């Protein structure tokens, strides 16, 4: 596990200017066989390098931009990280089983490009992780939400980074509706364990000083078809 990577994503280094890595999911764009950095699966270094290259191509001097402008540049160029990509870089699973890889070619592709094929469903697969109860929860576990939102069309994963005095800290990559186009990205939040015998939804979720339904992460958890805690095998 590499929890330092969260900081690297939260503070992408553009010549000393620290920029929060935006959220980007390839679902709508359906870019295929491209660089992983263009599919929302790049490392912090790759995202920075690609942004610099794109800026060169377009004659834009990123050095003169402030953090918000650089972030807007990243968003406009589909550079960012999705939730499973972030979880992959934090948890660094040694070997994953890809249920969708049925033929030889698919298996070869998943072997060569595991992160592009790593989705929330893959992380939640029984061959890759096991479910644990709230009382057994520890740093490195994932809170996996399947089918969230009004249309139940988005899966999401939070990675628990630490626990102190009954407060779970997690990191994830998501764009809230209230964030607008340029607001989302790699964020951190916390879940205050009010009662260990109750479900996750009955605990107190706080992120970006917001709780209840204002906290969109909690809203996603609430609307999910399935909300479970998983631990990688």
């Amino acid at each position, binding site marked *: 596990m590499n929890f330092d990577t969260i900081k690297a994503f939260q503070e992408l280094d553009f010549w000393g200017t620290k920029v929060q890595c935006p959220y980007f999911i390839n679902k709508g764009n359906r870019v295929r*066989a*491209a*660089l*992983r*950095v263009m*599919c929302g*699966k*790049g490392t912090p270094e*790759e995202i920075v*390098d690609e942004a610099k*290259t794109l800026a*060169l*191509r377009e*004659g834009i*001097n990123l050095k003169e931009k402030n953090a918000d402008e650089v972030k807007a540049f990243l968003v406009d160029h589909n550079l960012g990280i999705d939730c499973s990509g972030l979880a992959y870089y934090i948890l660094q699973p040694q070997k994953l089983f890809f249920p969708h890889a049925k033929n030889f070619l698919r298996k070869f592709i998943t072997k*060569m*490009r595991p*992160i*592009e094929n790593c989705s929330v469903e893959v992380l939640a697969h029984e061959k890759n992780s096991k479910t644990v109860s709230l009382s057994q929860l520890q740093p490195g576990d994932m809170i996996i939400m399947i089918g969230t939102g009004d249309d139940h069309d988005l899966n999401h994963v939070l990675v628990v980074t630490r626990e102190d005095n009954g407060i779970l800290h997690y990191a994830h990559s998501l764009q809230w509706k209230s964030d607008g186009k340029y607001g989302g990205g790699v964020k951190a939040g916390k879940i205050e364990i009010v009662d260990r015998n109750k479900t996750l939804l009955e605990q107190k979720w706080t992120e970006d000083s917001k709780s209840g339904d204002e906290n969109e992460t909690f809203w996603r958890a609430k609307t999910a078809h399935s909300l479970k805690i998983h631990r990688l095998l």
Partner: protein
Amino acid sequence: MIISYEHLEILRTAILYALCSAFFAFLWAPLLAKFLYKYKIQRHNDFDPTLAIGGSTSKKGTPIMGGLLVIITVALITFFFNWDRSYTWMPIGAMLLASVLGGLDDILNNVIGRKRRIRKIRHVLRLIRVHKDWKQRIWLTLTLPWTMFKRTSLWLGSHPGKGLHVHERLIMQFLTGAIAAWWIYFKLGEDWRQVHVPFDGFIDFGWLLIPIIILVVMLTANAVNFTDGMDGLAGGSLVITFSTLTLLSWMEGYDAITYLNATTTGALITYTYFNIKPARFQMGDVGSLGLGALLAINAIVVNQMLMLPLLGFIFYVEIATVIIQIAGRYVLGRKIFKMAPIHHHFELRGWSEEKTVMRFWFIHAAFVLLGLWVALF
């Protein structure tokens, strides 16, 4: 070993060819520069990010097609003073063909071209199903393999812009290689089919020589093309390679090829003088493709094909990095180098252009020297 007077005379003449070529090129270089500036045959920044590396804009507006200086000088001097049906016809013909291809690309890319697009295979398949005109549907079905070839060849190219598309370049380069292979295999006799193997005499590849020559010519032409990305890099490296080839062809007793190599070296010296940073003009595809083809053919003609990886070391390193980068992109989904060809990788890592170019020259020189040493066995 005692060198005979006649043999020494050939070397003297070759050096004279080089000097005359350099002088002649020097005489008309200002005319070429004026022409290129007047008609604004310049590389545009909009599709070439490498021009802006390091925040430099000094290259913006520098004309391309400066390679014409070498191509025209070599072609004219060879045509008037070294025209030999057995030896210099084919190298010059192939060089000119590759240059025409490169020149066409330069002009389309930078002067008169407009963007063309290639339909996606999925789009064509859909049209075959739904097009209202049945004749169009048949036509699209019949030309589907061609569309697939065009589309898949895009995997090898980075930006299908205004210039020649990758499949067009491949076909023309294949043609250049094929002409060279045909000439060497069928027209020049059995001796020419021998390939020198250092420490082990000669090997005869038989008919396999034809595809090998085509491949080597295509690879080398593109390799020099990729190397032509920094001021002085391709020019300086080619001077080293062609002067070594002059020496090799002189030792092997190929007089006309010796003169041709010497002429090319001379013209390249003048070209590189003008191409040193800040460049008066850049080589462009017109020069790099032509000189790449000439380099491959001249090495093949003097039976030193196996020495090409050493004689053209830096060119093959450059093309290898491009291939690795493309393979990394498709197979691993990530870039192996910050940018390919590799000279831009070092530039992005903070090396200055001058440092990169000069280090590449001397690394190249060291490997060419190794190639010369091995070739002598």
